[in-house]
């Protein structure tokens, strides 16, 4: 999911940078002071989750958890992911500094989408409904990101179908697991900290 420096063309890098900057600005503008610790905690969770590798078959996968970030943070997922990705690039060489904008947008945009699509379902209804919507949010975050990664590579000259297929297929198991964890987390948070999901849904402006 982390695209490295040198894999993308200049226009894609520039477009990703601009889009990510817009998302970060939007996220920061809507961020009340009392939600800053949530942003920091989820940023740290994402930062660590990418380091934990679970071997599956010949390859290994790691959790992404951007769907979970989205449903808790909304647009604030942008700054949270920007910081986590920046530190991953600096400390571990995941991704890179030039592609930071593209990577941030690729991970944060699906997170924001899953917020708008799933938050009502997560708030209303019983725990099983919330679990299902949480699962949707988690899976959507991963699949949306892999589609965007495929798209970024395609726009940089790699064959889209091949690139997207590879990214999608290899990320399917992560999407399922990410969804399960997000669903479980949603059920837990609704029980112990219902105010996490109580913030009003901001209009997309």
């Amino acid at each position, binding site marked *: 999911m982390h695209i490295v420096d040198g894999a993308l063309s200049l226009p894609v890098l520039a477009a990703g940078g601009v889009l990510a900057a817009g998302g970060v600005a939007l996220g920061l503008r809507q961020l009340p002071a009392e939600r800053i610790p949530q942003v920091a905690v989820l940023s740290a969770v994402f930062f660590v989750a990418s380091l934990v*590798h679970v071997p599956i078959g010949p390859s290994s996968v790691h959790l992404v958890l951007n769907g979970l970030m989205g449903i808790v943070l909304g647009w604030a997922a942008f700054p949270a992911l920007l910081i986590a990705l920046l530190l991953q690039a600096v400390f571990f060489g995941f991704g890179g500094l030039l592609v930071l904008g593209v990577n941030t947008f690729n991970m944060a945009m699906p997170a924001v989408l899953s917020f708008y699509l799933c938050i009502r379902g997560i708030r209303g209804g019983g725990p099983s409904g919330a679990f299902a919507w949480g699962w949707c949010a988690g899976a959507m975050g991963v699949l949306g990101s892999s589609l965007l990664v495929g798209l970024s590579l395609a726009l940089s000259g790699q064959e889209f179908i091949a690139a997207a297929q590879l990214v999608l297929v290899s990320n399917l198991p992560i999407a399922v697991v990410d969804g399960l964890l997000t669903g479980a987390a949603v059920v*837990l948070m609704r029980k112990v900290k219902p105010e996490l999901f109580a913030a009003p849904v901001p209009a997309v402006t």
Partner: protein
Amino acid sequence: MGGFMSRGIRSIMVMLLLLLVAGPAAAHKVRVFATVEGTTIQGYAYFGGADRAQGVKVEMFAPDGTRLGETLTDKEGVFSFAATQRVDHRIVVNAGQGHVAEFTVLSSELPNSLGAGGKEIGRDELSHPAPEAAGTLSTGGGELSAVALQALLDKAVARQIRPLREQLDAYGEKVRWHDVLGGIGYIFGVAGVAFYLLGQRRSS
């Protein structure tokens, strides 16, 4: 309801357990490592940790950007490439999904017998690396030219230091706990700065 609740807690416990078991493993990053044996560049592509990258494209580029050739890795992630020019070989591996890695084999690792930039090199250059051993050495029964001896020495030394270089390469890739903790610290530090800035804006 209770079932969902306990399932939620259980999966979080499983995650924590995985966290403990997996530890800070190396990442999904693709890496490539290569050495020279004779005129053949041998190496392998791997994902951080130990998984080898199978069947991925390996391309070689000269310093001026010209493409010297390409090959594929086998089931063990190993590739080999017969060098024809004594120039720096920039090895680029593309494992898909935006996973690209580079490694450079320096021209000094390649034997002198290969011409630089396709040209055959003259005698003067050939004898240059071992002036003190000029002439021939008598060994046991036969005689060994200085050039041949140099080639043998190069090969032996390269073979001896290869494990060391591999170890160094892998060492640089290891994700370390203090980096993880440092990163978490930075994140909370940034949050602290955000609070500070907000506080300043409010008080002014």
